[in-house]
């Protein structure tokens, strides 16, 4: 790792720091600045002073005569739900019933549901889903819809969906010609138009700085669990129940398997516990606790299941981002997952 970072969980940002400052902060916890300087034989006094002046300015540190009063922040993650989020994929050939899935997710207290339509928007279909959700007493409190661009659907059509269903947090229209547009409906509710093609589960798993999440909940979750799969259940477009629709292992089909049964399956939660501290390359990456993960597309598909996400272009050894898809090391994995389609 070339650098370290300080994660600012309150202000949702991070600060890059040299590795030797990381050592000072972790190895010398509770010591005075004078003791730290002495530890390094007083050869780096000016540097150490400069470090602490900078940290103090950014309010990362405060001076105190009573360090014993300031305990280490509890790093546990604990939520009163077995499931936190669900993905349901639908294309033109999907034949499963949504209603029963909604009831099951509600009784499992799954808070967030994402429905991805791998087809262009049919307002009537989305409207009837929303009417159904409106009619039931559900414990699921947040819905996200992802849908392909349809030139017959207007912005007003989409806005009506937001109006009809207060729990619709976001609606993403992909494959729309033009640039990305984000319309804020109200606090934490967004209508998004993007030219990016998201018409299949193959488009998931990207790792980038833009997807970093820097807050106490996601940070502690990443310390203890997988930052993508923990608390997740998915129903792919054929109704197969999986950790994630992009993965191959199925734990049964929604037509004859209950979600609660799947949660009891000994193998189902295995992936939930893969932390970044176990993933090769990631385990020495400074971003590992604020980054997402992908266990569906990895650099070595035939390896131990712990290689880094394929769609990550960051190399922590040199501290640089490059385009993952043109990295020659990734070509074999690319062909393994996506065949010979030309790279974008």
């Amino acid at each position: 790792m070339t650098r370290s970072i300080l994660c600012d969980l309150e202000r949702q940002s991070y600060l890059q720091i040299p590795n030797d400052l990381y050592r000072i902060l972790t190895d010398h916890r509770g010591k005075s600045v004078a003791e730290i300087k002495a530890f390094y034989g007083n050869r780096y006094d000016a540097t150490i002073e400069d470090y602490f002046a900078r940290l103090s300015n950014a309010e990362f540190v405060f001076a105190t005569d009573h360090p014993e009063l300031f305990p280490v922040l509890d790093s546990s993650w604990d939520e009163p739900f077995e499931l936190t989020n669900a993905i349901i994929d639908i294309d033109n050939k999907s034949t499963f019933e949504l209603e029963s899935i909604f009831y099951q997710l509600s009784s499992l207290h799954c808070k967030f549901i994402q429905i991805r339509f791998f087809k262009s928007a049919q307002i009537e279909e989305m409207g009837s889903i929303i009417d159904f959700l409106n009619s039931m007493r559900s414990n699921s409190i947040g819905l996200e819809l992802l849908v392909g661009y349809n030139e017959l659907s207007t912005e007003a059509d989409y806005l009506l969906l937001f109006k009809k269903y207060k729990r619709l947090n976001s609606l993403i229209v992909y494959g729309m010609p033009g640039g990305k547009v984000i319309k804020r409906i109200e606090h934490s509710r967004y209508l998004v138009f993007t030219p990016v093609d998201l018409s299949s589960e193959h488009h998931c798993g990207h790792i980038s700085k833009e997807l970093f999440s820097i807050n106490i909940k996601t940070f502690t979750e990443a310390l203890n669990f997988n930052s993508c799969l923990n608390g997740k259940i998915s129903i792919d477009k054929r109704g197969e129940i999986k950790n994630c629709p992009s993965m191959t292992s199925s734990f049964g089909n929604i037509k004859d398997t209950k979600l609660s049964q799947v949660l009891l399956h000994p193998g189902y939660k295995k992936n939930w516990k893969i932390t970044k501290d176990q993933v090769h390359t990631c385990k020495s990456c400074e971003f590992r606790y604020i980054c997402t993960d992908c266990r569906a597309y990895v650099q070595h598909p035939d390896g131990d299941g712990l290689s880094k996400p394929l769609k990550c272009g960051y190399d922590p050894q040199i501290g640089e981002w490059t385009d993952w898809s043109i990295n020659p090391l990734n070509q074999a994995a690319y062909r393994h997952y996506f065949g010979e389609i030309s790279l974008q």
Partner: protein
Amino acid sequence: MVYILSEKTDRSTDLVTEWLVYLKSSFKRLNDEERVEASISVSNNGVESRYYQPRKVWHRRGNLNFLPDEIYDHYPDRTAFLRYFTRESSVLGEFFESRYRKLLGRNYIGSISQESLNNKLLNLVLASKNGFLIPQTLVTSNKEELVAFYKEHGCVITKDLRAPVNILSAGGHIVSDGVKLLNDKMIEQLEEKFVPVFLQKYVQKKYEIRSFAACDKIYSMAIFSQGDESTMIDYRNYNNKKPNRCVPVNLPPMVEQNLRNLMAAMEMNTGSFDLIVNKENEYYFLEVNPMGQFHWLSESCNYHIERDIAQFLADGK
């Protein structure tokens, strides 16, 4: 049965009830906005109620509400009639609280009567008796005295005596602006006669502490509000763009004992305390909110307070 007395939109209650569901503990949430039926009979054989046999109570917020919704159509604004009926039925809520607080002891968390009787001045006196420093405080309606206090201490803050301003008047919605530093202009604008004003000597602080107490535990958070002009006077003058640093902190054992003694003296088993640590590491008591918010503290310090409260309520089911 576990009863939770609260309000419909209280987020902390939602979070605790999520944990209760997870712990498979049965409970009833009675919101201020929703009517419950009255049924209490009192005889020589004792008290009987068809509905309320609480094993534990968490009195988070609000009052029990015994009025039918239709009454609000009859008296749509807060007319004297509505006030009368509210006051009449409040006897039942007071009965419920005072009876079950006595019977359940520590298993009755919180109190609405303490919220309404909460008195900043009495609290300061009690805090001082229990080992806390308190800022020099003056409540006055005398201009001469006010000016003298201002001249003597130089840096003086003023805040509400009971609750923040929240007045819906013909002239618009008036809300208070938090704690203010007294200045010359404010004094110039004062009439000769005015309503009692709360004044306090400004304490130079190293940091503030918000301590929340519940279920025999005390959870404390240090708030470094000194570096920010908007929060220097009081952390509640929030700066949303650059929130104050909030970190877990422990009270020194002596101070924690003082706080427990103070709570005993106030007959409280929960509350949010605002403290200040000055440059000399001395602990000042500012005020207490018997039904204060704690979610912010719980989240910033990753204390899982909601889980602890739920576990306390679920225990011994």
